[in-house]
């Protein structure tokens, strides 16, 4: 089984990424629309009178802003994942074309690394913010995810490997 080129594992993964990419766009759109609705409803709390939102076993008083904040965080998170998948699609397109050391792949991997780090930092920021808004909410405790930070470092190292690969490719192109 070939790893690179047309009809290889890379092209199969590219198809999966294409499907995930479309699904994420739909997801981001849906969550974004819900966030806008929650924002509109927050100006008129009576419309949300029948909706009960609980945190830590107690009912949340300011439902509109809390829901808006939660949905905004979800939209931003899904947006970050969407950008990562978009970069991976482009990387896998070069792998499918049999050109793994395309110079643009270095920048794409760095973007993936930065967004992974940003999403992890955003998780901590969201926890701090939610603790200040909902002091009773303790369902989600923050934890330093070593796996996430390890992934970030691996992606940055991979970006450097690809940079070296791109340099060698250029050297090979200019070797007569």
């Amino acid at each position, binding site marked *: 089984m070939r790893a690179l080129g047309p009809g290889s594992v890379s092209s199969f993964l590219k198809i999966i990424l294409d499907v995930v990419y479309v699904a994420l766009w739909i997801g981001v759109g849906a969550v974004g629309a819900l966030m806008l609705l929650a924002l509109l409803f927050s100006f008129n709390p009576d419309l949300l009178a029948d909706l009960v939102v609980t945190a830590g076993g107690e009912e949340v008083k300011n439902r509109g802003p809390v829901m808006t904040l939660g949905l905004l965080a979800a939209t931003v998170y899904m947006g970050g994942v969407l950008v990562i998948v978009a970069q991976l699609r482009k990387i896998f397109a070069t792998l499918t074309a049999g050109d793994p050391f395309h110079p643009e792949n270095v920048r794409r991997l760095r973007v993936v690394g930065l967004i992974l780090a940003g999403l992890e930092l955003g998780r901590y920021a969201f926890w701090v913010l939610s603790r200040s808004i909902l002091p009773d909410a303790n369902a989600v405790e923050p934890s330093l995810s070593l796996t996430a930070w390890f992934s970030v470092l691996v992606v940055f190292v991979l970006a450097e490997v690809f940079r070296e690969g791109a340099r060698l490719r*250029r*050297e090979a192109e*200019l*070797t*007569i």
Partner: protein
Amino acid sequence: MPIRVLLDRVLLERRMSLTELADRVGVTIANLSILKTGKARAVRFSTLAALCRELDCQPGDLLHFEPGPGDEDFEDD
């Protein structure tokens, strides 16, 4: 790059075109143009040997070293 390729001069002396040399050596015209214009980063010994064979010359006839401020940065990029 302090190494200057003198391929155009040798070609002129031999009254040979770049196309003909490319055919004889088995290198594309595009690659020979890169070599002729000094854009090449390296030359394979096999290519150099083929060039010398077809042009009936020595490597020194094709390459010339010109010391300059940029002759130490062969690890650039």
